[in-house]
């Protein structure tokens, strides 16, 4: 007889989400639903009739962790719509900005996941905030990597959070040679730290992979070797930066995208029948709590080729670098492998960058209402923005953000794991929930079928 457990809210990730899990008598998940309960932001509606310069800036405000990805995807979807090619030096600055954001975000994610893991060779879990070694020096390294990422982002993008420098048509300001040198030096410093951090994280993860159990809420929970495995596909537009409809070989295809409504996807009404007050933090929801994922989920369910897909570091590595490791550990390790890529890409872009070059297209067309899209590879996956711009005003705007893609995929990946480790699977996706709550559902004919919800 299956029972229902609810973990609400899930912790150590951005935003507000919960897990509703149908488990068997042994506590193994038969069906898991991971859903966003962050209220819908309505950015797509706010965007209508605003100027194409305003909208990406507004869109970036959905989240403070990857505002750079949203700014760049927003701007490039506008450029895609108005058919504006930007100068090469502007593109290089955007690449630097993108990598800086990914560096800082991955480092931040390390802090969030480390408490799940053990110091290799011991049964002691890692507390990233302890003053004791060896953890303290790791924490310092993580913070320095974040600082490096944010400082580079600040110089190239004007701000580390909600960057002000990118604009439709290129960038507002070029960086001076001094600024380029500063970024270069920081990247060089970061590269050493990134190598160390990557090695450390992989050692911790491999150690975890070898373990048979982990301790959750005072109990030893067996760790399945197939933790987080799923049979869904992968989607990535580019190994590092992104793609748009202006590319010769676009990395994403809007025709392959459809949406389904949460009530066609998630579980229906139910009642919590299994609770564990000892589960961190504060226990699971008490027995008798009503759950209704169909109605509570605040996201649509986007499908690519009619099925949910995984996006993120592993998807990028699978698509472009023949990576084949599955499951939660494979996901974490893929993320660590991107550390050094970020810094090498920054260094290469700065080598190529010309401080006296042009960074703004001239002229900037105002648009004829045709569709443009940009798929930016945000730290946690492919962030697609779609826009139609006519005479400088936005007629249509849509954001398909990484975690929206990952919600249904991760829900599938929960099956077969003990429910106590479900949050570990969720954290493998580095979820960023607040920007994932969008509610425009589009069917096969590209008709909006669930518009009512957002009006």
């Amino acid at each position, binding site marked *: 007889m299956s029972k229902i457990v609810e973990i609400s809210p899930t912790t150590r990730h951005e935003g507000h989400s919960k897990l509703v899990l149908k488990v068997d008598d042994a506590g193994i998940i038969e069906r898991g639903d991971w859903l966003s309960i962050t209220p819908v932001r309505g950015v797509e509606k706010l965007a209508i009739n605003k100027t194409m310069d305003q909208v990406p800036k507004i869109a970036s405000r959905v989240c403070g962790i990857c505002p750079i990805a949203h700014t760049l995807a927003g701007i490039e979807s506008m450029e895609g719509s108005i058919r504006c090619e930007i100068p090469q030096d502007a593109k290089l600055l955007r690449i630097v900005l993108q990598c800086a954001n990914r560096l800082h975000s991955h480092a931040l994610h390390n802090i969030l996941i480390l408490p799940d893991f053990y110091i290799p060779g011991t049964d002691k879990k890692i507390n990233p905030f302890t003053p004791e070694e060896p953890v303290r020096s790791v924490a310092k390294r993580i913070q320095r990597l974040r600082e490096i990422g944010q400082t580079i982002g*600040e*110089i190239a993008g*004007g701000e*580390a*959070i909600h960057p002000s420098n990118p604009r439709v048509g290129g960038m507002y*300001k*070029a960086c001076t040679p*001094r*600024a380029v040198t*500063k970024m270069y030096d920081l990247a060089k410093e970061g590269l050493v730290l990134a190598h160390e951090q990557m090695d450390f994280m992989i050692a911790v993860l491999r150690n975890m992979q070898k373990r048979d159990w982990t301790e959750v809420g005072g109990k030893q929970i067996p760790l399945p070797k197939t933790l987080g495995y799923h049979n869904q596909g992968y989607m990535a537009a580019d190994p590092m930066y992104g793609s748009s409809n202006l590319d010769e070989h676009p990395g994403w295809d809007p025709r392959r995208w459809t949406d389904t409504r949460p009530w066609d996807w998630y579980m229906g009404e139910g009642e919590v029948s299994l609770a564990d007050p000892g589960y961190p933090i504060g226990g699971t929801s008490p027995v008798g709590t009503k759950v209704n994922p169909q109605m509570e989920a605040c996201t649509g369910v986007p499908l690519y080729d009619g099925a949910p897909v995984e996006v993120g570091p592993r998807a990028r590595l699978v698509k472009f670098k023949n990576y084949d490791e599955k499951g939660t550990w494979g996901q974490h390790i893929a993320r660590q492998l991107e550390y050094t890529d970020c810094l090498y890409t920054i260094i290469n872009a700065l080598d190529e960058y010309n401080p006296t070059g042009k960074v703004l297209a001239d002229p900037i067309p105002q648009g004829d209402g045709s569709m443009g899209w940009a798929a930016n590879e945000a730290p946690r996956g492919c962030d697609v923005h779609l826009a139609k711009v006519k005479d400088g005003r936005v007629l249509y705007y849509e954001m398909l953000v990484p975690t929206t893609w990952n919600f249904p995929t991760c829900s599938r990946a929960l099956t077969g794991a003990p429910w106590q480790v479900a949050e570990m699977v969720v954290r493998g996706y580095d979820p960023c929930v607040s920007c994932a709550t969008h509610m425009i559902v589009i069917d096969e004919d590209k008709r909006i079928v669930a518009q009512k919800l957002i009006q």
Partner: protein
Amino acid sequence: MGTELGKYKLCVSARSADKEILKKAQDGGIVTTLFKYALEEGIIDGAIVSGPSDEPWRPRPFVATTVEELMTSRGTRYNLSPNVSFIKEATRSYGLDKIGIVGTPCQMQAVRKGQLYPVGLRDVPDKIALAIGIFCMENFPYQSIKQLVEDHAAMKLEAVKKMEIGKGKFWVYGERGQVVQLPLKVTHKYEQPGCHVCLDYVANLADVSTGSVGSPDGWSTVFVRTKNGDDIWSKAIAAGCFETKPIEQVKPGLELVSKLANEKITKNQKTVEERAKFGVNKALRNPYISPK
């Protein structure tokens, strides 16, 4: 009043030892020389100063990172130069870690306020390495200067060699040698109205503040106010950047600075009080009193 000159550690009359700077300096060349020294010694990476722009005598704030760039900013242009607007950009696309900034008393207030409450100035407060304030009675919009020079002084703006306020008059010196003096009574109505609530004459919040008042022609009065300012000033003196005289031994001396500071404060205090009663139950906010 006793507080009109603000807090200071040291006050001297000084002049740059660099003849090249003095050639085009307004008075003693203090700001340019101090920035030059700080730049050469690595105390600052660059300075936000106002230099010439496309229009004659309209200042354009820019970030000077070399002595050559700094030299173009010598002299005073008597109208608004929004130097503070560059304070964030200097740390961003210019990549500076140690910034020097020069400005009027109100701009020094803005810099300090930005350091205290860095709203929209993330990672800027710790990068202000040297803030130099200049004495200021009031300032003019560009249109005012244009009208004063072209209409009242009957001179083309392009043909002006130097402008100066001193001895109770606004002086305009032409390239061809002509000198026009306008009584300050004429210039008053062209002042920026916002200046009339300012109660700071000598840039109380700067690290070092300077101006011509109180010192003989070609010299400047210098107040060294903060520990940081004192540190840089004493090093610059030791390096022989300035000639100095004790302020007590020069004419007209501190008395005149005090007199003018008090005049400004008394006059503007009246505007502040008038504004408190302005409109019907809608007093304009007094920037010097926090709202209750």
